[in-house]
């Protein structure tokens, strides 16, 4: 029987959680509505029936409590996987994540490990109400002690989830909720590449688009569309936000000599700026244009009726690629 199956990303995450629950008695799930309901996105569907109410725990409606008790359970040797229902609801747990979870290993001089995984359905384009479409990754990336990954395919979602749970460090998985129903092949026997490395998904020669999570399929579509204009675009899936695989991104940028970084989060103070600086430091002499950023605007996430103008799409990415070509070096 083949271990390769076609499934949507949400089901790939379910499969990863099931396999980790089965592999290690110490793995627990905790979150709001994750039991009988299976979570608002049904990612934990059926897991409570299979593993019991004490391993798939319906929590009180309290995000700080979910993270704080996960820390306590992890201190005792468990491997809690906490689900935060939506990106915008992570903030009541922000103190526990940044001042406690991220620092515990360091402040105890490595004596206490806190292998907590936080599953965070994130990003926009789902037509929802406010606080349901945010991209808070830069806030967490700025906090030493956290690992942050963002899968863009069912295969990555499956393996990143498993790798996050077995990691001894706290890991935040940014689950691109608009891609939950994106189907793809999942090979449960052959691991995807290391969760904390970037990956070149499409080779190209003229420019690179680097992005992660929900915008990876957009970048691949943009690269395909650019073919019509005789542009050969390389696409890098950044995959890991912390640690950041700046080496792989810079290598691609040095090769194509032009780099566009895209994310849904606002560009101001965002990951794009960090990546631009790092690529400039590594490959300045190779670049024919400054690293350009495509992202959200410096505003709270707008009402869904306007999100199509806020979120980067194929055209916004291609516009940045063309702008990159408009720069002339050494003039």
């Amino acid at each position: 029987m083949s271990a390769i199956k076609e499934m949507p990303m949400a089901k790939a995450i379910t499969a990863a959680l099931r396999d980790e629950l089965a592999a290690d008695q110490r793995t627990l799930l905790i979150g709001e509505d994750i039991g009988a309901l299976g979570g608002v996105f049904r990612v934990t569907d059926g897991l409570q029936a299979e593993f019991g109410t004490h391993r798939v725990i319906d929590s009180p409606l309290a995000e700080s409590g979910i993270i704080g008790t996960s820390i306590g359970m992890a201190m005792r040797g468990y491997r809690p996987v906490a689900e935060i229902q939506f990106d915008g609801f992570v903030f009541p747990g922000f103190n526990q994540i940044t001042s406690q979870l991220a620092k515990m290993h360091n402040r105890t001089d490595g004596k206490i490990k806190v292998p907590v995984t936080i599953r965070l359905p994130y990003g926009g384009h789902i037509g929802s109400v406010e606080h349901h479409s945010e991209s808070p990754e830069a806030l967490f990336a700025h906090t030493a002690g956290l690992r942050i990954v963002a899968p863009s395919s069912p295969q990555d979602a499956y393996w990143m989830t498993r790798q996050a749970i077995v990691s001894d460090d706290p890991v935040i998985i940014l689950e691109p909720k608009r891609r939950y129903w994106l189907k793809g092949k999942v090979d449960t026997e052959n691991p995807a590449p290391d969760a904390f490395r970037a990956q070149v998904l499409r080779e190209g020669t003229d420019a690179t688009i680097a992005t992660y999570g929900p915008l990876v399929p957009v970048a691949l579509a943009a690269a395909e569309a650019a073919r019509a204009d005789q542009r050969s675009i390389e696409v890098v899936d950044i995959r890991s936000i912390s640690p950041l695989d700046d080496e792989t991104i810079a290598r691609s940028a040095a090769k194509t000599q032009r780099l566009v970084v895209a994310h849904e989060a606002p560009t101001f103070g965002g990951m794009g700026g960090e990546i631009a600086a790092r690529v400039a430091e590594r490959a300045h002499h190779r670049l024919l244009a400054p690293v350009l950023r495509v992202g959200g605007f410096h505003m709270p996430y707008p009402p869904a009726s306007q999100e199509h103008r806020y979120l980067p799409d194929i055209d916004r990415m291609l516009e940045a690629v063309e702008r990159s070509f408009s720069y002339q070096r050494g003039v």
Partner: protein
Amino acid sequence: MALLTCGAAISGATGEDHTVQPQEVQPIQLLAPDGKLAENEVYGPYIAALSAEELRELYRYMVMERRLDAEATSLQRQGQLALWAPALGQEAAQVGTIAALKTSDMVFPTYREHAMALYRGIAPEELLTMFRATRHTGWDPRQHNFQVYTLVLAAQTLHAAGWAMGINQDLRMGSIPRDRAEDEIVVACIGDGATSQGDVHESMVFASSYELPMLYFIQNNHWAISVPTRTQSRGPLANRALGYGFEGVRVDGNDVLASYAVATKLSAEIRAGKGPKLIESVTYRMGAHTTADDPTKYRSAQELELWEGRDPIRRYRTWLDSTGDADQSYFEQVDAESKDLASDMRKSVLALEPIDLERVFDTVYSEPHRQVEAEKAWLKDYEAGFAEETTSTEAGGTR
């Protein structure tokens, strides 16, 4: 007029006794400030069961802590500590409670549980490490079942709840770890100020809903830096437990015997599977909040005087002396021991080695992280550059 009263209470204006609560509930007291032991059918038997040796130990730990506290304060005044948070006046609350627990019970402290830490065998210099800022913490929590101090207040009450969820989980799975006990409970310490933090609420919700084996130990020392307890709560803090569906008991925290008896009774009930309990220990912070604070700016001399009259150590010594379980030579011996502790502590604190920044890099994550490794390597090269410069300058000077 009503507004004025309210404003005065909130601002913590001096000249009135801020330690009187609007809805007073008499705390459980066995030992009066004059050192007389009252009869008590419920709590008396717990005291009667204590041996002379155990009674003397309660005294000894209180005196040790008070001496440690004074020495730490003077170390800070001499510029040898970055900060110190005195526990002066709270010795009985802490010693009585920790003495009632088993060593297998995990304690999640705030940052003022010095007597409890001492009782658990944490060395004075380990306790002062954080305050000397040589390292973030000086002890191994696993060795003493005593977690590290928490400064972002009340965050630890959720860790305690999570630890207690882990206990229940172990019991369900029938897999108690070798280093844990079957009847283990968890103690979450907080002060009156921290009870206003949202994490306390969430912790109590989790504790109640999951029937966790938890003891909340609130030391109401009446002042959150400069703000009186009345600004945190208009009712006794013990009553808060009722809102979550569990029992809260108010105890005289300056009475080491009542503190011991109440904690013993409640912890036995928690061990028996009756779910969480709360102790509000009514005590008084006789010193400053920390060495960075001046209490004369917000509280009156009369109030301090009133509470000095309720001193926990004096009243216990009076009683202990009257029982014949300790005599003058014992008290002198403890005094001498506490002086030795202070002078040894001074030496060992001054000898504390600061952590290397390399070690800080190494513990940000437990697994390799590209950016941390790159920055660590960069710093090494950068500093090596200075070393070379110094060497070449020195070499140049000899020419």
